[in-house]
Every structure is written in C-alpha cells, then in structure tokens.
C-alpha cells in the first residue's frame, strides 16, 4: 500500500462523468440489443406487478406517501442539526464519524482506515454510495481486494461491470448469462442455469470470504439521529455478515440519509420495501448502535461511518431541487419508467440510473457531463406517480432543463455546469417562436403560409420521419375556419 504522504487528496473526476457523456452512443448500442431489451421488459413487468400487489389499499398508500414525504422534508429542513446530533449520538455509542466532501475524500478515508488496521481481506455489502465513489477501483489501486457479497453485486463484479439497477444490480442479465459467467470464472463450476444451484455456488464462495474477512463495508438505509443507529435493509444476510463477522466495519452513506426519530423509521421502511420489490418487509432489518461492547462475544471491535456530500449540498441549496434528497432509494421510479425499460440501466452511464439518476447525477457529476439526461424523458410522470416520498420528478426534470439552457451570463449560479446544454441555434429558435406566438397577427399569418405551402412540406423531418410519416398541415387553420363561420361561411377541410 502506498505511503499516505505520497497522496495528494486531489479531487478526481468520477469515471462516471465520461460514461455519462457517452449517453447517446450507449443508448444506440443498448436499444439495439434485443436480449437486453427482453431482460429489462421481463424484469420491469415483474417489479411493477409486485409493487402493485403490495399496495392494494389506495387510502393506506396515499396516507403513507404523504406522511413519508413530510418526514423526509422535516429531516431535510433540519439536516445540519440532525447530522450533528447523529454524530454526537454515534460517537457516544462508540461509532466514529468521518466526513467527506468529494468521492476521493471518502475513498481515502476508507483506504486509510483499512491500512491502519492492517486490513487484508475486505467484503462489501450492497452500497450504492460506494459505487458512486468507485471504492473498489480505488482500493484495487492500493492493492486491497474488495469482494462484493450481495449476489447481484457479486455477479456484476465477476462480469467487470457496474450495477444496472439500484436494488437488483444484475437485472440486465438473464440466468443463461449468469450461468455462463459462473462457469467461466468459478473453478469447478459447470454451466447450469438452475437458479438454486447458482445461488448455492455463490453462497459457497462467499461463505469462505466472510469467514476470512477482516474488514466489512456496508451502506446505510436510515441513520437515526435520536439514538445513533445505522439501519440496513437486506434479504440475503450478507449485510449482517459484513457488519458482524469482521473486526472492522466501515459504513458509508450520503448526508441525506439521516432521520430524526426512531419512530420515523417504520413508515419509511414499510414504503421502501413495498415500493422496491413488493415485500412487506425485507428478510432482515439490521439496527446497529454500537461496536462490540464488553462481555460480547462477536461483532466488530470498531465501527466507522463515512458521511458523503458529493453534490448533495448543491441540491440542498435550492428549495425546489432539495426535494431530490427526499429519495429513499427504492427504485420504483426506474421500474415504471418507459425510457429505463427500453435503454436499460447501463446506458445512462451514471451510477444511479432512471429518473432518480437523472435528478441526482447532475449534482454529482455536473450538468456538463450529464446534459443529455434531463431531456431524455417524455415527462410521462409514471415515476412521480409511484415515488413513495412524492418527489415531483417531472417538475424537477423541467427545472434541470431550465438550468441546462440558462445563458452563461446568468448571475444566479445554482448548479455546476449550468448552461452546458444551451445551444445558440436552439435559443434563437425559441426566441423566434415566442415572437410569433405572442403576436396573434404574426401567428395567424405564419400559419396561413404553413397551410398554403403544405404541398412543399418536406417528407423527411429528421428523427421524426425515420419511423413515422410526416404530418401534413391542413388546407385551412381552425382560426380561418372560425373566422369564416363568423362571416356566415360554414366550411371544413
């Protein structure tokens, strides 16, 4: 491992910035992949159905959503106080709290904690924030192997990919692909598409690793300020393994994950698991408040929490955009998104795909790298309809579009990369459009020309006519026909 003195904690651009810039190429590639399209269609149909069954009582759902929205909004308006309280409670409990502004800061803290404790073998529970920081890559550079233990993450790690969904990381693969992956990468495993067999194989490999690991890394679903408690949601048991067996447990999470009271947890938990996979509750709900105490026989001797900003404070600074931070990472938005269903999770190029990805990535990576994301939505609103904390997603996307096309001279700097999506020609077009459309005479004259010159309407209209015939203007506008009517002439076209 490198000498810490050789390090300059220089803020590095996330690797995701480049993959986000390649959005259009990624989309073209993945739209063309029929196996991928089929995998996603099947997966989304499954998750949409599951959620629907879990929310059969409309009244309960509406009440819970409103309650949880208000809970999150309260926790956000009190955020700095709650973070201080959380830190105080956790440290009173013996859990050490660290703060990181950038992803590099976070990685560096974790790397140093591992080094200080002579960590050789690291197991990781599912943590999207650690994907955000690209922790595995960073640790690999230090010569520290960090093995993913969540089945989906394990699969994705074997495939040298990153997750394509925030809840089900390997959702883009079907079982034949997983079987092939295991056969090619696990000694002694023969190709077998039986899912139980595949899972047992994963269990076997990882069980050894849990037994040997000296460091466990996890995420956090809810961090309770009142009691200094880290809450984790999982079905597999690997989270419990990572947070119980190794001597050192490091948790990493975003600053927006703090909740005020323990009593805030049950409604949020209920909405989280039902929105995500249609489960009333996850198999395990793990609540950690201390490292191993005197007399206890197991549990980590040290527990650390890393709190990451990475653009969240930028979202926080704007009243409208702050709503983005209400997100409890359930994935319902992407499950219902017609765009995500067709392009899949990798095409976005960002850690968080789908509607939440579109809202949060511009803060994490800057609007310049993510400028194609806010417009890659038909604003259908399916996401906002299912968001458990009622984030008005289409409104926020609209707002991001506004920030994206702001003139660079605009004084109010709300976001990094503001104005990156502005194109001079487009700005001129809308200027001209508004000039015409706010002057009725000018408008009626233009439309008159449009109708009289309808024969000259081009048959090719860019992207539109690749898959559609061009619409033809009418022979007379409705304005004209109504004007004629008022003169006593009844006409139709």
């Amino acid at each position, binding site marked *: 491992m490198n000498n810490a003195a050789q390090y300059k*904690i220089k803020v590095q651009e996330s690797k995701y910035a480049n993959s986000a810039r390649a959005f259009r190429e990624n989309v073209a590639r993945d739209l063309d992949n029929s196996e991928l399209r089929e995998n996603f269609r099947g997966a989304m149909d499954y*998750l949409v159905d599951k959620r629907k069954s879990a929310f059969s009582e409309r009244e*309960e759902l509406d*009440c*819970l959503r409103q*309650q949880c929205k*208000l809970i999150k*909004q309260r926790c956000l*308006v*009190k*955020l*700095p106080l709650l*973070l201080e309280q959380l830190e105080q409670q956790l440290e009173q409990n013996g859990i050490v709290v*660290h*703060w*990181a*502004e950038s992803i590099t*800061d976070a990685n*560096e*803290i974790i790397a140093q904690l591992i080094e200080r404790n002579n960590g050789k073998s690291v197991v990781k529970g599912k943590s999207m924030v650690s994907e955000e920081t690209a922790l595995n890559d960073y640790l690999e550079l230090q010569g520290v192997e960090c093995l993913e233990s969540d*089945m989906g993450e394990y699969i994705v790690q074997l495939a040298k990919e990153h997750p394509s969904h925030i809840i*089900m990381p390997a959702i883009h693969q079907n079982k034949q692909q*997983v079987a092939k992956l295991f056969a090619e990468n696990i000694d002694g495993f023969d190709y077998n598409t039986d899912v*139980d067999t595949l*899972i*047992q194989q*994963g*269990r076997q490999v*990882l*069980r050894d690793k849990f037994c040997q690991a000296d460091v466990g890394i996890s995420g956090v679903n809810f961090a309770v300020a009142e*009691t200094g*408690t880290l809450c984790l949601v999982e*079905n*597999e*048991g*690997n989270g*419990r393994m990572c947070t119980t*067996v190794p001597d050192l447990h490091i948790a990493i999470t975003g*600053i927006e994950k703090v909740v005020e009271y*323990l*009593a805030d*947890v049950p*409604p949020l938990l209920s909405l989280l698991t039902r929105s995500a*996979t249609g489960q*009333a*509750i*996850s*198999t*395990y*709900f793990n*609540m950690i*408040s*201390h490292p191993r*105490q005197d007399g*206890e*026989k*197991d*549990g980590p001797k040290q527990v650390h929490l890393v709190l990451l*900003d990475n653009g969240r404070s930028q979202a*926080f600074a704007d009243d409208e955009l702050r709503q983005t931070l209400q997100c409890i990472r359930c994935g319902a938005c992407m499950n219902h998104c017609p765009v995500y269903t067709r392009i899949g999770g990798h095409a976005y190029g960002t850690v968080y795909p789908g509607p939440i990805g579109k809202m949060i990535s511009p803060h994490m990576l800057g609007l310049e790298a993510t400028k194609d994301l806010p417009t890659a939505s038909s604003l259908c609103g399916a996401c906002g309809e299912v968001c458990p904390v009622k984030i008005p997603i289409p409104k926020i996307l609209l707002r991001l579009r506004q920030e994206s096309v702001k003139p660079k001279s605009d004084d109010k700097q709300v976001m990094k990369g503001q104005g990156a999506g502005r194109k001079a020609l487009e700005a001129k077009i809308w200027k001209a459009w508004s000039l015409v459309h706010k002057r009725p005479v000018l408008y009626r004259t233009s439309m008159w020309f449009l109708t009289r010159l309808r024969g000259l309407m081009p048959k090719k209209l860019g992207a539109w006519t690749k898959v559609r015939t061009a619409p033809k203007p009418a022979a007379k506008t409705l304005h004209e026909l109504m004007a004629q009517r008022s003169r006593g002439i009844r006409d139709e076209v």
Partner: protein
Amino acid sequence: MKFSHSQSARANILAKLKKQVKGADYGKLPVETAFDYPEQDFEQQLNQFICQLEANHAQVIKIKPQQIADTLARQLKNRNIASLLYGESSQYSQAIEQLNGFIELTPYDFMLDGNRERLFNDYPASVTGSYCAIAQTGSIVLWPTENEPRTLSLVPPVHFVIVDTNQLYQDFATLIGAQQWQDKLPTNVVLVSGPSKTADIQQTLAYGAHGPKELVVLLLCDEDTL
C-alpha cells in the same frame, strides 16, 4: 483516529447546509398523519404473523412451552442433524439443555476471535430465543446478548427460533412506541422475517443466499391458541 481533512469537510458541509436553513421555523412544520390501521385482535394478529412467515418460506410450529426439547429433537432428526449450537443462561436454555445426551449440544461460550472456522463449519444448526415479534410483517425481533451472540442466529445454516405469542405486537410502529425503544437500543437488533433469500438472478426467488437456509419458528402458545 480522526482525519484532518474529515474535520475540514465537516466544517464546510455543515456551513453550507446551515446557511440554507438559517431562520427556519421548526415550530411551523406541517402535521404528519400516520395511517390508522384497523386494530386486530390477538387471533387475527397471530394468523397474520404465521401467514407472513410461511409465505416467506419459514416453517412455523405451534407448541406448548414444555414441548421445546421434544420439538427440537424431532426437527433435528428429520434433518439428519445431530448437533445444535445455543446460548447458555438464556431465556430457554434450561429447556434446550434437556437435549443433553440426545444430541451434541454446544453452548456458544467462546469468542468469535480465533473460532471463526469452527463457527462456520462445525455447526449445522442453532437455536435462539427472541425478544418479541411483529404480526403485520411476520417479523421476529432478535435482541442479541452476551449469551446469545449475533452470529448465533446468522452463521449456522438452520436457525431455530423460539417465539412467545404473548410478545406479539400488531406492527413495528406500535412496538417501538410501546417499548420506548429509543431509550434502550443495544449493540444490535435484527428483525428476521424468514430464511435468507434473493431474487437477483432473473427475478427468480432462491432461498439460502448467505444467512440461514432455513428458519424454523417454535411458536409458544397458551392452551387455547394451539
């Protein structure tokens, strides 16, 4: 233990956040309304509890407290398991110790340090008590202690858990409120609602991912509930 750049990050982050909410009136926040779930009587709660657990592939066996040892013996025999790990001086240890001589009963009386291989390989089954339970979601609350460590209910592939129906609460919110959990959380609490599972491979459910492959619930009932 603290990193200097962590301290400056802390100062910067908090400063940015505080600037934004300066002057916020916390007294004027909107009222939050919880959903008023219809109250269920004990029988409804018990049914709900069992249904949820069974739907999650747990095995639920209703027994009288005196039947703990017999039930364990029979369930172990069915599975061809001849040994059991348990916690000494725990809630049900006396009942469990009746199995001494019939099976290889081992108390978890060692530190995990230096005994990991042993824990991971030598014990096909374990038994624990529980703190209480939640009907709405079919969840069992484990409140690990020095006598019943956290890994006791996690590592062995078959986990027997003894649940007292007199400690059944309708839902999680009710439980937290009734027991005032915010005043007394221990090192670790786990809500367990079934054997370990995953649907990560083509959304196909498979059991026994990393936690126990089987969860067997010995549900202690009064005469009339049996």
